[in-house]
């Protein structure tokens, strides 16, 4: 019942983290010049991503009560987010087209004629509202999964690359085993075992998704550990853990950021595929597309549901991919050299 408090807490933590990041970026010459260059290259994509994030955050801040008597009793006792309060609560009976004044089939009266900018779905929910709600789910899937997968990949990758020997063998065996299994089947099996929930989907995606980055971080660590400053630290008697934390990890940071951004869009897409198989996350765009699957073969056609969710999904992924590409250019040492 207290999930909305946790959600609020996470939003607060995110703001804090964002503040710290901004402060640190401004302090470091390298990072702030990277950001400036990124902004110069992909201003629009950054703004679009920002809008998605803003919507998701607005949907994550929720509280109980404090609004009009117009909504039903259940809603009054539920934690409702800013998005719910502003855009929710305009339910119809069934399909209506965007801006329509009457129902799509049968032409019955609407409760809120002309107010559904993107129409309504089969049971009369406003598509615009549902599309906005999908942003939070998409970011949650992308964010949470990366949060599980990237540390996992770093842990295995660095230990394999830095210590080598047996550890390397074990990690490599694990990676090849996972990589040789059909990803989608493994995903389905994991979700079946863990039950269907947002967390289960995220964990399943993370378990199948960490291998790629693990390989990269292992390779990079292999290279880094032979460099002079690492040898110097080692001969000065710095402990292995200290070396990893002080010299290896910071030098992997740009890879982490690039991977995070690129992985993110892949994850959101994977979820859409899972939804299509009927094991996705409740309220995601993938699920909306799945629900709308049969609508395209209706006659007359109902297009707005799939169009809205598809466009929202497409927009987010395109923007994030642009940002990711730009980030790669900006953070990759070789391209930085070129620019100067």
């Amino acid at each position, binding site marked *: 019942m207290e999930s909305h408090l946790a959600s609020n807490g996470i939003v607060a933590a995110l703001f804090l983290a964002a503040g710290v990041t901004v402060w640190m970026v401004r302090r470091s010459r390298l990072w702030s010049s990277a950001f400036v260059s990124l902004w110069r290259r992909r201003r629009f994509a950054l703004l679009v991503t920002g809008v998605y994030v803003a919507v998701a955050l607005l949907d994550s801040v929720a509280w109980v009560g404090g609004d009009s008597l117009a909504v*039903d*009793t*259940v*809603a009054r*006792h*539920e934690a409702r987010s800013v998005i719910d309060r502003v855009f929710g609560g305009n*339910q119809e*009976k*069934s399909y209506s087209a965007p801006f329509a004044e009457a129902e799509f*089939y*049968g032409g019955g009266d609407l409760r809120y004629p002309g107010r559904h900018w993107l129409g309504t*779905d*089969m*049971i009369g929910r406003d598509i615009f509202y549902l599309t906005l709600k999908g942003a939070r789910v998409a970011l949650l899937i992308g964010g949470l999964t990366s949060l599980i997968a990237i540390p996992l990949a770093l842990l295995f990758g660095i230990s394999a690359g830095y210590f080598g020997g047996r550890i390397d063998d074990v990690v490599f065996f694990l990676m090849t085993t996972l990589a040789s299994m059909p990803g989608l089947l493994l995903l389905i099996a994991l979700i*079946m075992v863990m*039950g*269907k929930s947002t967390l289960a989907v995220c964990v399943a995606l993370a378990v199948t998704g960490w291998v790629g980055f693990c390989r990269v971080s292992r390779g990079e660590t292999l290279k880094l550990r032979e460099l002079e400053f690492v040898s110097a630290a080692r001969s000065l008697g710095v402990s292995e853990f200290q070396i990893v934390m002080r010299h290896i990890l910071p030098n992997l940071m740009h890879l982490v950021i690039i991977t995070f951004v690129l992985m993110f869009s892949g994850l959101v897409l994977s979820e859409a595929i899972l*939804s299509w198989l*009927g*094991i996705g996350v*409740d309220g995601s765009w993938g*699920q909306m597309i*799945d*629900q709308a*699957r*049969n609508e395209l*073969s*209706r*006659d*007359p056609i109902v297009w707005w549901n799939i169009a809205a969710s598809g466009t929202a999904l497409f927009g987010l992924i395109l923007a994030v991919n642009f940002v990711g590409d730009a980030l790669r250019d900006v953070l990759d040492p070789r391209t930085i050299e070129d620019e100067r």
Partner: protein
Amino acid sequence: MTLMSTCSAARLLGLTSIWALAWVACNNNPYPPTEAGEKVLYSSFREAPRSLDPAVAYDTGAHAITGSVYDTLLEYHYLKRPYELIPGLATDLPTQRPGQAGYTVYGFSLRPGMVYENDPAFSLGMPGRMTREIVSADVAFELCRLADPAVNSPVVEPFSNIQGFQEFGQALTQRREEDLAFSNLPVHEQYAALGGIEGVKSVGDHGLEVSVRSDYPQIQYWFAMPFTSPVPWEAIAFYDGEEGRPRFADHPIASGPYRLQHYDRQSRMVLEANPNWYGAVHPEWAAPGAVYPSQGAPGDLEAGLLAPEWAGKPLPFIDRVEFRREKEAIPYFNKFLQGYYDAAGVIKESFDQVIDEGGLSADMEEMGIRLEKGVEPTIFYIGFNLDDDTVGRPGGERARRLRQAMSLVIDSEEYTRIFTNGRGIPAQSPLPPGLFGYDEAYANPYRSVDLERARELMVEADYPQGIDPNTGKPLTLSFDTYDTSAQGLLQYRFFTDAWRQLGIDVKVEATNYNQFQEKVRNGAYQIFMWGWVADYPDPENFLFLLWSDLARSKSGGPNTANFMNDRFDDLYLSMKSRPNGAEREAEIKEMREILEVERPWIELFHREDYALFQGWLENVKPFGMSFPMTKYRDLDPAERTSLRKDWNRPVVWPIWVGLVLLIALIVPGVMTFMRERQ
């Protein structure tokens, strides 16, 4: 060398494809042209039936074959409603006399002189013999097969009302375990060694007496289903699936109006009129099951169902039935529109193209296609688990008011409109139309939408505005389901949204089937949605779903709502064995009143079947049971041929346009080539 051969192969391929294209362009008829003038019914199947064994086959797909191939002792009247039984293989409806205490003996007598279809299996009894007479021992043999646990029949439960039925099955299992020599005998010898089922006796060659518990007169309906068809022991002994012989499940030997002539599970099944059928051999009998009825239900005469060309004429009219495999709905429907199938269901994808405000669209009407709507003997309902503390019996009067309130906000009409394209009629009680005890005038006061009254009831139930006084928060219930599809979730949303209006927060708990089953086993469920399709048209077959002896928590029975009401049970037991009449009607009415107030179910709707028939198909009356009524149908092949020609005029202009475009593409190339050569 290799290059050469590839070239010629490509040329060959190109040539063949051009020829194939030319051939297809001329004609899209999937059937041989020689069939055009024949009375062949074209039908389809999606998946081949798993088994054609009459003791096992229990789905619509299999019944399409077994229902035509196997004849039964009794049958349903083709036209009369409410459904009525007529004699089939039997000379008359069964006689009834009291037997041992609590049992009634049903006496059937088979017509003498009926034979099976020709089959080499009959040489087992006498070398060179191709067929033999149908005797009552064959029916007894089939009943033994139903009881045989090795056959694994899905309908053991209703037949357990036959005296000694279960004991026979147990004795059989026991003997087989103890005695290896016994278990190696052919099954008919095993059955004979045990003396058959105690309550089933054949009297002479043609008499059969079945002793059934007196409170189950519905057994008669089971004698109108292929489960009780006569099966020759030779068929089981011969078709054992060994040494290249097919299994009996794939090779029926029967006596019905049609015989299975061709059976290819991947693509094609063909039925042809059985020359050995008693209707064909002995037209002078004019047996009720072998002639078209001359009387029907009101309205049949006007509908042309009793026209003189058919009334009283010997069956069957159609000589052959072709089933072609169609895996996808849309191509199947398109072939129907081209005239290559004679009947079709209305598929969801093109519903609005076909149906216009409950009737046929103008386009379809013009093609002469007919729409037949029939309410199936079904009920879909939301049930409450009455063992539950909040919504069930322990909650007392409060829970009853809650159930009443929840029932008052579910709009069945809206539900069918949104989710089933309006196919379904709102249910007022468990009994669908066409059944004895259905009352068209009856309107359940708790099954119309009345939000005001529902809110009052919530106050009376001490949940004012849905607030549970114990917690100060809205009442939270769970709706348990195993349907996790996106479409399914929308359906449940529809219900939970309705209940939200009362301030009740119903959470949908969608789990996989195993978890759901476990919840049901443990009684850990509150609200569920379920459907029931009747096996036979008797009110008992619906009301037993609420009989306390069959409660899920008591006996694992189908009464998932765990409804237990003494008065209802008394009425049920008394109604069950009573013949249709005023007394039975009064009892059903009282049961209905109990359900009305107690609300173990929120009755949603009775499903309606929309079927499309081509204009040339005649004598079509929708039949709610899942048996094919092919032998009563007729068709006009000449009209079909001419209409098919009309509907399938080749469209030639795209070929010319394509040709012109192709030339337009090639000419500049050739010109350039010529210029460069110069």
